């Protein structure tokens, strides 16, 4: 029988032959990702940890990124407890405050590889499909259970195929592409499904793919994946991982998909997700001129070197509007260092940007750039839910780094094609 990517991975990891959608299988993932929530996770199972220990010290990847550096005594204590846990159980893969956002670390450090299975107690764990990994989010309790037992159940998903063709126009990016797709498919349109991207994907870099797979969960998807090609192999080579280190999984040509969508990339325009849902997507032109008070470039969606480069090109030699704050957050320390070496940080700071340490920052509203009632923020993040940035009476608009950068200069929402063409 011809199989989809998800079916093949779940067959491989469960050792079950008859894999069909809705079947429940038991799996042991290659890795389990947790972040600041590790403190709450281990608290649930203290007795069992003392009695039985953990399933494996190589499976967990722990990255402190959500509230870093600690904002309160409570978050500081959480971090301290996690460090003690890491030491006691000799956890191999621990990234303390300052390394970067967990999803960036998982890809950058080579944990996410083609054909692997990764689970994480964070909804954007679906990002690793950028390099051909099957990855999906779970909750804290399930992460606790996995730490102890090393296994869990997964339901075999139905799959959706998205065919991309041609190239994006200048001033239009991966972010605009995924916003356009989410606007069409809706916030629940891919619920429980695996999404596969096919077609002219060779034009999209790993950074582009990361932005796209990262937002799979915003349409309800279980996982989202670009099948491996020369771009993936080239990227993995560049981080020191040769082909002999992984086993690529491809979908079969005649696999069954419940839905198929075709997108001509050359027809996509700069897009923006308006309050308060990620599928409330419009062309930037439709709301151009709307005044904003905060601009944010960063997060696991758009905090990579290519994103910072685009922002620096637009902001070079210019000053941001005196009516806005521009917050920029590199997704990892390696990206930060690279941006320093390339002079990007200097350009951004000279334009008036505030640079935050690599982490989740203001994305989840815990600290570092919380909004006030009545304020509007244009952001490169992946969620614009009411209250997301700490205030229920503020508005969040989601767009590409180019749209955010040009909007910061003008003090109002602006189409980047105006300056880039």
């Amino acid at each position: 029988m011809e199989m989809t990517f998800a079916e093949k991975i779940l067959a491989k990891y469960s050792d079950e032959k008859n894999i069909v959608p809705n079947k429940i299988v038991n799996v042991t993932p290659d890795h389990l990702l947790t972040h600041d929530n590790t403190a709450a996770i281990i608290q649930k199972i203290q007795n069992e940890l003392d009695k039985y220990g953990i399933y494996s010290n190589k499976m967990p990847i722990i990255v402190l990124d959500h509230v870093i550096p600690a904002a309160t005594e409570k978050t500081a204590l959480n971090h301290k407890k996690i460090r003690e846990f890491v030491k006691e159980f000799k956890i191999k893969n621990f990234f303390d405050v300052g390394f970067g956002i967990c999803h960036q670390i998982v890809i950058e450090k080579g944990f996410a590889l083609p054909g692997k299975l990764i689970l994480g107690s964070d909804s954007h764990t679906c990002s690793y499909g950028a390099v051909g990994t099957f990855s999906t989010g779970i909750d804290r309790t399930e992460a606790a259970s996995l730490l102890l037992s090393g296994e869990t159940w997964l339901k075999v998903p139905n799959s959706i195929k998205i065919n991309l063709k041609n190239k994006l126009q200048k001033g239009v990016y991966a972010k605009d592409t995924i916003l356009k797709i989410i606007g069409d498919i809706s916030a629940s349109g891919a619920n429980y499904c695996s999404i596969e991207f096919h077609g002219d994907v060779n034009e999209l870099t790993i950074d582009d793919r990361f932005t796209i797979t990262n937002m799979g969960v915003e349409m309800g998807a279980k996982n989202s994946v670009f099948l491996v090609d020369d771009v993936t192999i080239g990227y993995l080579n560049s981080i020191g991982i040769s082909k002999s280190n992984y086993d690529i999984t491809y979908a079969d040509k005649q696999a069954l998909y419940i839905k198929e969508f075709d997108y001509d990339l050359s027809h996509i325009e700069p897009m923006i997700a308006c309050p308060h849902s990620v599928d409330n997507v419009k062309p930037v032109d439709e709301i151009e001129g709307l005044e904003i008070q905060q601009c944010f470039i960063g997060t696991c969606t758009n905090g990579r070197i290519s994103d910072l480069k685009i922002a620096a090109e637009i902001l070079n030699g210019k000053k941001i509007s005196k009516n806005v704050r521009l917050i920029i957050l590199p997704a990892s320390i390696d990206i930060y260092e690279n941006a320093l070496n390339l002079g990007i940080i200097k350009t951004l700071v000279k334009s008036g940007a505030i640079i935050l340490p690599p982490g989740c920052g203001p994305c989840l509203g815990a600290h570092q750039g919380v909004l006030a009632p009545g304020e509007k923020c244009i952001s490169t993040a992946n969620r614009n839910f009411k209250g997301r940035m700490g205030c229920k009476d503020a508005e969040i608009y989601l767009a590409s780094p180019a749209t955010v950068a040009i909007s910061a200069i003008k003090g109002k929402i602006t189409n980047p094609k105006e300056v880039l063409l």
Partner: protein
Amino acid sequence: MKIWRYGDNVNTDMLFPGKYTYSCSTADEIIPHLLEDLDSSFSKDVKKGDIIIAGKNFGCGSSREQPVIGLKAVGIKAIIAESFARIFYRASINQGLVLIESPDFVKAFSGNDSIELNLIKGIIKINKKNFSFPKLPKEITEIQNSGGLLEYTRIKLKKKNK
């Protein structure tokens, strides 16, 4: 019993604001903030045995189990929705919070109807009309019957280490 009625795409920030995720983890800490940005009366007025009826994609957004822990702790008997987001769905199984996916029921419910819920038979009744909902697969009912995922795992570990 009160019925709390909400629409489509009730997300995890509406159910429990992200700003509290690293300051609240016990049920007592969570309950005052339940549905804070969606319905400020909820945490004050909710009672044991109440039901939530909602539209599509309930619980979409983050991996955030605080609302599940909180809704279970205040005694929500069930959440009936047209559909649920998957991480919320898994979290509810793991905490033993009852979720019922029944788009037909949600569409038929007028807002003033009295309803009866029979979890054992898998039936919800509006006036005289019955809506049945499918039983969960046995792998999942085993988790629920153990009293949640952690209990299930504890039993498994005990057996293994005997």
